[in-house]
């Protein structure tokens, strides 16, 4: 009997035994990796049943990462948005403050979980890919914490635009390996990560940074990131005794969004909005795979991809290195297709404006990734009543982005 038959009315029982979310997901990897991917799945199932694993994960999240992260009512931002809203409109804006985590983003939640799995499997060498560098920093951090050698693949173009994170990774003892193939961004870094993995399967664990890749990665990354939504749901109930009306999160691969959304998926009155990066605009260069792509197979899973009619993968563009990827986690593709989550997008220019708005109204410098979500929150809040509640995931802080933002605003620092 499949899990779906046991609980027919749930959106929270994916993927199926073969790692499929509807038609998406799966395990599209070379044969060399297949036995390892099957091992990982077995080990993950065992870890999920093991109270000691969960206890160690929870302990590290509390005392090392600093969880639970606060739930915050953004009063001044709410007021600011209400200024140009129609009468009676302007929903209350709340944030889940995952930018306050150790290392400055949600990425660490997943890295803690995966390094515990790696050690459980007896792996002694860690590799990862990174776009903005947040996942690279989080991976280098947990490797330093547990004393494992760490190799981070990073596109040469991303190394240029994320120098502070490159330096952080090196301080943490990681080797940052520049990737010059393709456009030198996240997708190319992921290709190199897979090439390393296939050549070092015996001792190497690949810590994938988003809820994508071959099964069971989309599932396990989602589960580790679900701490965001689980906490937020409990915090909302305890603070104001109700659930939010709308959840909003930015999406590159989609791990912060699925982490926020998943625990709420069966709360039928909670609407959800995922925000892709529209870059220079959907008719130009962008990174919105759901809006501008179609289903295909890349990096171990079937999902929406930016591609041409022959299935050649297109280069993505976003001002945010963390959103600059031509695919998306397979569970989002499924949630879009069944209509449970709505997806929209925000351009570079809109994200930059929202970035500055949050700095000035709340004294919070967000990363460019959640700045996309904030731009959408502004848009949505104006359409919603004042007693309604929007909860957005503030998934990263903007220290890493100040050089990019300065350049975009024409300021030299």
């Amino acid at each position, binding site marked *: 009997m499949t899990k779906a038959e046991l609980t027919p009315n749930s959106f929270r029982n994916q993927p199926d035994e*073969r790692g499929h979310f509807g038609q998406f997901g799966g395990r599209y990897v070379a044969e060399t990796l297949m036995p390892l991917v099957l091992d990982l799945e077995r080990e993950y199932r065992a870890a999920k049943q093991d109270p000691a694993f969960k206890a160690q994960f929870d302990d590290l999240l509390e005392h090392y990462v600093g969880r639970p992260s606060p739930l915050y009512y953004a009063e001044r931002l709410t007021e600011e948005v209400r200024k140009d809203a129609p009468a009676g409109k302007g929903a209350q804006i709340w944030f889940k403050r995952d930018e306050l985590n150790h290392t400055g983003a949600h990425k660490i939640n997943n890295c803690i979980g995966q390094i515990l799995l790696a050690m459980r499997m007896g792996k002694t060498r860690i590799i990862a890919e990174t776009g903005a560098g947040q996942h690279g920093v989080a991976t280098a951090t947990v490797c330093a914490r547990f004393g494992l050698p760490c190799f981070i693949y990073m596109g040469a173009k991303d190394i240029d635009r994320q120098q502070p994170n490159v330096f952080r990774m090196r301080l943490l003892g990681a080797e940052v390996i520049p990737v010059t193939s393709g456009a030198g961004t996240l997708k190319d870094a992921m290709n190199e990560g897979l090439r390393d993995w296939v050549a070092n*399967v015996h001792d190497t664990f690949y810590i994938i940074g988003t809820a994508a890749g071959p099964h069971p990665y989309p599932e396990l990354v989602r589960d580790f990131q679900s701490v965001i939504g689980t906490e937020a749901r409990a915090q909302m109930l305890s603070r104001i005794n109700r659930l939010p009306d709308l959840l909003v999160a930015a999406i590159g691969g989609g791990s912060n969004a699925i982490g926020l959304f998943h625990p709420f998926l069966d709360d039928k009155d909670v609407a959800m909005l995922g925000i892709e990066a529209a870059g220079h605009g959907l008719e130009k260069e962008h990174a919105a795979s759901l809006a501008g792509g179609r289903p*295909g197979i890349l*990096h171990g899973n079937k999902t929406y991809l930016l591609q041409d009619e022959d*299935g*050649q993968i297109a280069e993505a563009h976003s001002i945010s290195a963390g959103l600059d990827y031509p695919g998306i986690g397979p569970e989002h593709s499924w949630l879009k297709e069944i209509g449970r989550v709505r997806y929209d997008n925000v351009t570079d220019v809109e994200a930059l404006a929202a970035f500055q708005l949050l700095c000035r109204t709340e004294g919070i410098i967000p990363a460019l990734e959640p700045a996309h979500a904030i731009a959408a929150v502004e848009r949505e809040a104006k359409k919603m009543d004042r007693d309604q509640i929007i909860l957005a995931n503030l998934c990263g802080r903007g220290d890493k982005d100040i050089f990019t933002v300065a350049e975009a605003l024409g300021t030299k620092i």
Partner: protein
Amino acid sequence: MTRLSAAFNKPHPALVTFITAGDGNTAANLDALVAGGADVIELGMPFTDPMADGPAIQEANIRSLNAGTTTSDIFAIAAAFRSRHPDTPLVLMGYANPMTIRGGDWFASECNKAGVDGVICVDIPPEEDPELGPWLRSAGIDLIRLATPTTDEARMPTVLNGASGFLYYVSVAGITGLQQAAQTSIDEAVARLKAHTDLPVAVGFGVRTPEQAANIARVADGVVVGSAIVELVAEHGMNAAGPVREYVASLKAAIQSARS
């Protein structure tokens, strides 16, 4: 008897050669492979993200795509090859997305029309067979599966279920064209695989010299050479046919004398 089974029924082990479609003068290079004595030809379908390939084939993919090669060009190359060489088996090798983007049925039917004998898809493991396998089988196209050093005994029946044509043993856990496997590990692996299947076993990854090819030919039914040929195409550009023919002939001579 299919073209592929005939190629593995010759008095000597089969020489299987690879080039990337649309890289250099592909038609001339294909003719050079045949003239040099290739028994089976693998024609690589270029992909933007060839994550199982080393630098030589990655660069060939980029050169081909930059030259504007499309899937329809690749089938035209295959069909023209078939009309020039009615007997040499041609296998398309590549990645899942270009093969499945218009549907497995479309791909199998195009293979059929172009006279393609078999397909190797790097990133569709047996677990995802429904993407392509049923369509190829019903079109009479061989689906060639890969076994690797990480494929253990317990997994062999899964790998072989639905496989035909030949079994491709990837002799190193790694990407194409870099390391070579120790000959003793190849001997053991081939013996292990042959205990599970009557399909011919061809061994590839990292094979460069006639000596290596001859050593493999002593135990295997076929020897696959790819990156070394692709490097000749890179070096000689549009004039690679001569050097390719010469190099392939040297491999062929070594293989033919391997068991004598």
